[in-house]
């Protein structure tokens, strides 16, 4: 069976759709890391909030047409607002402090959010129905494949293109790129650095919400999912290079394919394979495949 090319093709698509969904989340993480230099452990928890908000809104809007897509928008907006509040109330006071305190703060968020979600929705696995029109399979000529997963691939590529466009072709993107390189220079040039930080944190967190909403029909939502996702996103960001969006895209594709084909190559050890791959990249390019070498 595993020698069958159609089977390989399906595994390839499985890996790609997984990778593209993870890319949306990891893009937010790497954006925050690159600009704010904050390693946000709570990014997975933000993702999970997105999933629960989607579940909640789909439930509330049950009969409305396009309820799922409204819920996706709602989850993204909810995370943007949530991130804004977090940034204004807490995070902004920690930028000048040692990295340890930022790590601990985001870890505190992980704990608090995890318990809040548990208190609100319990510990059951909650499934979110596939959106109307995307609940079937599409005929790709050689095989049928779930339509929603194909859509995930498309959304991943569209997100990647949109981010690339914003970062490389707009003034705002230029500012963001500059911020990853030299923060002091930015404020010397009269740019409002705190506002840039806030906007980047809000955007990155909104991407986590979007990713969580999109993943909810495939993965369902349950406590503990955040830990799995944050670790996978860290791997993607590390492999690709901290702060590099292109790197996150490449890392997401590699992680997706390694997960899909690792199961065939080394059954039961695909997880180890991924970590070995990551450690291998780090040994030879500690700054990641597409990252820049740390300035000294």
């Amino acid at each position, binding site marked *: 069976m595993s020698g069958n090319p159609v089977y390989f093709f399906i595994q390839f698509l499985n890996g790609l759709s997984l990778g593209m969904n993870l890319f949306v989340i990891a893009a937010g993480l790497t954006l925050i*890391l690159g600009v704010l*230099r904050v*390693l946000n*452990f709570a990014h997975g928890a933000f993702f999970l909030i997105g999933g629960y908000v989607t579940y909640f809104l789909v439930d509330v809007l049950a009969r409305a047409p396009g309820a799922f897509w409204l819920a996706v928008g709602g989850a993204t907006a909810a995370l943007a607002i949530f991130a804004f509040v977090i940034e204004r109330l*807490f995070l902004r*006071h*920690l930028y000048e*402090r040692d*990295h*340890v*305190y930022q*790590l*601990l*703060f985001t*870890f*505190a*968020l*992980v*704990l*608090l959010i*995890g*318990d*809040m979600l548990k*208190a609100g929705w319990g510990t059951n696995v909650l499934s979110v129905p596939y959106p109307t029109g995307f609940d079937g399979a599409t005929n790709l000529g050689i095989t049928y494949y779930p339509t929603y997963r194909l859509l995930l691939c498309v959304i991943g590529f569209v997100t990647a293109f949109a981010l690339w466009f914003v970062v490389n072709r707009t003034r705002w993107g230029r500012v963001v790129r500059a911020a990853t390189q030299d923060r002091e220079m930015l404020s010397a040039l009269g740019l409002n650095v705190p506002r840039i930080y806030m906007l980047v944190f809000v955007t990155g967190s909104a991407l986590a919400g979007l990713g969580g909403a999109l993943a909810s029909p495939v993965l369902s939502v349950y406590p503990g999912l955040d*830990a799995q996702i944050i*670790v996978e996103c*860290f*791997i993607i960001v*590390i492999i690709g290079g*901290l702060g590099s969006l292109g790197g996150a895209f490449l890392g997401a594709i590699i992680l997706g394919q390694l997960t899909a084909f690792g199961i065939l190559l080394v059954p*039961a*050890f695909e*997880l*180890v394979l*991924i*970590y*070995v791959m*990551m*450690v291998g990249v*780090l*040994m030879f390019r*500690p*700054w990641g495949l597409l990252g820049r070498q*740390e300035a000294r």
Partner: protein
Amino acid sequence: MSTARGAPRSMWILAAVLAALLAVPAAGSLYVTYLATEILIFALFALAFNLLLGYGGLISFGHAAYFAIGAYGCAVLSVKLSWPLAAAFPAGVALATVAAAIIGYFCVKLTEIYLAILTLAFGQLVWAVAFKWSAVTGGDTGLIGVPVPAWLDEPAQFYYFALAIVGACVALLWVVVHSAFGRTLAATRENAVRAEFVGIHVKRVQLVAFVISGGISGIAGALHSIFNRSVFVESAWWTQSAEVLIMAVLGGIHSFAGPAVGAAALILLERLIRDVTEYWPTFLGAILLVVLFVFPTGLAGMARRRAARSVERA
């Protein structure tokens, strides 16, 4: 000797703490003895961890790896290969030390947040191996039934055994941080470039600190596996690395004993709160917020500031 005329206050405190520790099994119940053993083990882990964070300024976010390797090494060798404790314990510690040397070699090339991420990555690699290599580590279910020799069977006996080992290791750490090496390590934290200029091989100093810290964390882990007579894969998960970091920061990373105080405080708090509610993480999160925004120097820093203030007033 300058200390001959009135022993400094810290000596009295040390003597009092030692006396209290020695009296625990006699004075307390079985439960208290268990709790005190656990506190000793995690206090050692936190102190070892803080050699890197407090003295070296290096954020290791994967310290659970060495603790877990020490624990698994000791447990696997005694359960699967029936090694006696006298051989399995040092072998587990040796494995943790070697792992710290290998991982440290790659990690000290990086600084700050990059170092944190790389240590985290290695930590997760250790977790993945422990989780997936079921034939050896027991995978998801962990390893149970670590044999304990008869002379350690009683909780009080094991307590004194742990106290002796932890005491020796803490003494070693004390000597290390107050030695020339310790001063050199602090110099690399304060200003790595300047330290390099005066001829210090910064990366080598950091690597040695890494190995000492990892090895002693391995001792804590091996002790823990004998104490619990089991090892579980959660001990390698990244939240365990976060926990030891919390212990250190809670107690205060800029004082020698701070992390031990933090470990005791965290373990006692967890026991107290878990008895009442399942929402311990909420409490821990709230505690962290208070520490971060109200007492950034930790419990020890707070106590020291209060002491300094009372000295000023006098």
